[in-house]
């Protein structure tokens, strides 16, 4: 299978899970005076719906306290809430033993459960399908440095497996597969000590080749099937393991997605670790407690698919990693050698070097399927001439639209 083994850099953060659950203030994005009923000095409960985003999904407050400001940073509006540290809420214990499928979908929608592996796709949409035969729990976490799913699954193994069981019962799903990388020995051991108690939940070990966690590739490896646009065509649903855990919280106590585990790592952090944080926490506050070296850059999400960020970065439901790296010398850029390594590693089967050659010719570009690119970054990673090949494919994607 195409793809490539990457250096992992996971040991530095793997075994540490801390908490930073008492931020002084939280900054909830996409809430402004126009789309919320709250105004300055209003009291807010943890879990309260602050408003709706542009797609109609609910936005919740992650703490209880008082609204103190509305700001705008980089064109994104934020509501600023001062935390009273009391965590006052309206959560209630649910009896979901006889929950119907429709109620399940509604619960996910009301609690704004989205894909926490990075994509942020609203999870309830996946479960609206008539028939689901297989549920795949994606705990592969193939990007280097990130250990957020790992540490969550290690801590809440029983809760996750219980939730999978519940999901299967409510949605009439025949079997589930937990997908883990074959070299993740501590996680495999832990899952194995629990999984035998669950009928119809199996463990599958995937090969350690980035991007093993890419949905399309994962389904091909685990179930041996391909699909056209969405996995549901083959009656398969894939969920990230952290998303499963959050589904569990929403089922048991109607807790919305207001907290997550974020990996703070990189050679630029003095004490790398995983941290349970509230949505809306300012990343720079957490970094202050962990200690950061000088002359470093901050990256949002992983080293392959993430992007450059700065001190204004806020924790959102899809932030799985804050990567702080020491500034490195720029590598020498050279002419394309036509070595073909980019074509060899592309997991989507594209030929990036030919896309780069034909970047001016839209007719030729169409034959090269740039829209299939998942932007995993392997082409840029592997290029010996240090060309940022992925940028050409992004440009090609725009051109063929």
């Amino acid at each position, binding site marked *: 299978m195409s793809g490539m083994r*990457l*250096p992992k850099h996971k040991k530095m953060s793997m075994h540490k899970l801390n908490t930073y659950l008492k931020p002084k203030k939280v900054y909830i994005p996409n809430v402004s005076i126009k789309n919320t009923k709250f105004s300055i000095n209003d009291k807010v409960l943890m879990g309260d719906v602050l408003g709706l985003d542009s797609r109609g999904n609910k936005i919740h407050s992650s703490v209880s306290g008082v609204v103190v400001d509305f700001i705008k940073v980089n064109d994104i509006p934020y509501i600023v809430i001062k935390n009273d540290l009391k965590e006052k809420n309206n959560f209630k214990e649910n009896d979901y033993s006889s929950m119907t499928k429709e109620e399940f979908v509604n619960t996910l929608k009301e609690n704004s459960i989205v894909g926490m592996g990075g994509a942020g796709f609203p999870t309830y949409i996946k479960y609206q399908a008539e028939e689901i035969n297989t549920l795949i729990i994606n705990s592969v976490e193939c990007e*280097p440095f990130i250990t957020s799913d790992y540490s969550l699954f290690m801590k809440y193994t029983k809760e996750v497996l219980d939730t999978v069981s519940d999901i299967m019962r409510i949605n009439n799903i025949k079997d589930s597969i937990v997908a883990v990388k074959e070299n993740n020995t501590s996680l495999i051991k832990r899952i194995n000590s629990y999984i035998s108690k669950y009928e119809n939940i199996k463990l599958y070990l995937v090969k350690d080749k980035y991007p093993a966690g890419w949905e399309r590739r994962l389904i091909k490896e685990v179930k041996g099937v391909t699909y056209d646009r969405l996995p549901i065509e083959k009656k398969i649903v894939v969920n990230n393991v952290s998303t499963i855990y959050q589904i569990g919280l929403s089922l048991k106590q109607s807790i919305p997605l207001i907290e997550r585990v974020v990996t703070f790592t990189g050679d630029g952090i003095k004490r790398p670790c995983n941290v349970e944080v509230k949505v809306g926490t300012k990343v720079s506050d957490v970094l202050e407690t962990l200690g950061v070296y000088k002359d470093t*850059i901050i*990256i949002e999400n992983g*080293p*392959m*698919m*993430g*992007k*450059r960020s700065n001190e204004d970065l806020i924790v959102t439901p899809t932030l799985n990693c804050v*990567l702080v*790296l020491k500034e490195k010398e720029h*590598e*020498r850029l*050279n*002419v*394309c*050698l*036509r*070595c*073909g*390594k980019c*074509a*060899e590693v592309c997991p989507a*089967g594209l*030929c990036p*070097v*030919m896309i780069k050659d034909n970047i001016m010719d839209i007719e030729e570009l169409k*034959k*090269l*399927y740039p829209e299939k690119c998942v932007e995993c*970054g392997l082409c*840029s*990673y*592997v290029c*010996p*001439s*240090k060309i*940022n090949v*992925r*940028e050409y494919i992004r440009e090609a994607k725009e051109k063929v639209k």
Partner: protein
Amino acid sequence: MGPFIKSENSTNKMMSRVIIALFPIIIFSFYKNGILCYDGNNIYTLFKPLIIIGFSTLCTFLFETIYLYLTKDKKLIDLIRDNYSYMPGLFLGLILPINTPLPIIMVGAFISVFIGKVLFGGFGENIFNPALIGRLFIITMYALTISDFGGYLNTSELDSIASATPLSNASLVEGIGTYEELVQPYGSLKYFALGFIPGCLGETSKVLIILAFIYLTLTKTIKWRIPVFYVSTVFLSTLGIGLINGVGLWYPLFQVLSGGLLFGAVFMATDPVTSPVTKKGQIIYGLCLGILTVTLRYLTSYPEAVLTSILTMNMLVYLIDDMVIEREYKKRKIILPIILLILSLIGITYYIGNKFTKASIDTNYEIVSKEEKGSTTTYVVTQVGYSSKLKLEIVIKDDKVVSIEYLEANDSFFNKIIDNKYNETLINNQDDLKNCDTVSGATISSTAVKKAIINTLKDHRGEK
């Protein structure tokens, strides 16, 4: 803008690995063509292989760097680091005969740089393998000059029995040849593998080339599919040709271990700039190279089958990549062209194999005139020699050759044949000409004279 980690690999490292892979081959060529030939007097003879390789490398490096410095607006150090101008020269030196005079090497290096690289746009843009362009020019213009200086043979080989490269020897053998005719003059297949046979500086040691291939493939430096499919195609085809003619495994091994096939397959055909980028394209490229080489080696009498094959396929690289992309786009299977290629390979193998069993007429032989007077017949015949066509007058009286005269004999070193009174030897041994010795130092020419007599006798006796 990511990715924020990059692989350890770099163009520099890849080029360094190629040089590391070439290092044992260079040392071996120094040993075989320098140390073994050293007569204790002429220090130049000792270091000649290293001088040739070094000079060639230096020439391409200087030519391209000076050109770029004068025409591009970049710092000299950047031009040197980014263009790898020494590479074509390094390869060129390794694919030249030991006796190539240095001025000719300089001309070849000049052509390599300016026609092989600069003309097409410099590093990364060239269509043809620059080293092969240089060699093609040298061989085309200066083959006779080089052969005057000794050709492919170093001084220690000139004195030994086998004094022609294995492939030129094979072209003179009738039919498909036997182990005794093709391999034994050089010892055994072991000598072919180790490299103690006549040939270009870097091409002879097959063992070292295979080791280099393994190293470069494990370090993911070269497009390994190309040499694998190229050499396998030639091996399987020659195996088929051999089987049709009843010769054993030694025959395909002989074919694969002769000439510039292994060096060309591992170092020239895998040049990243001039070979396909797609995986399937590389497979097709290797297959086509194999088919072309086999066709050129058997169906033509021209030398340099490997060089011609690679340069021809260089032209078609874009076509191959485009075809692979088109077929994927139209969702057609790529296996279809591959099956077509394999079928044509089988067809060519079958055709060539049967050509040997049918042909027993020597096409290098021609009767110019034949005069019969009673029991005496005077033949004037021509036979292709080493570097020219020999014209002989052969008089047969009472079914026995009585005189052999050389009317035209412009082969280099033919004087040895005259000095050794070879015509007398042949007349005395005319009942067992096949086993008659050749003149050392002029093997091919003397074999040609021998064949002229054999063919003439056949014609006289009405044999076919």
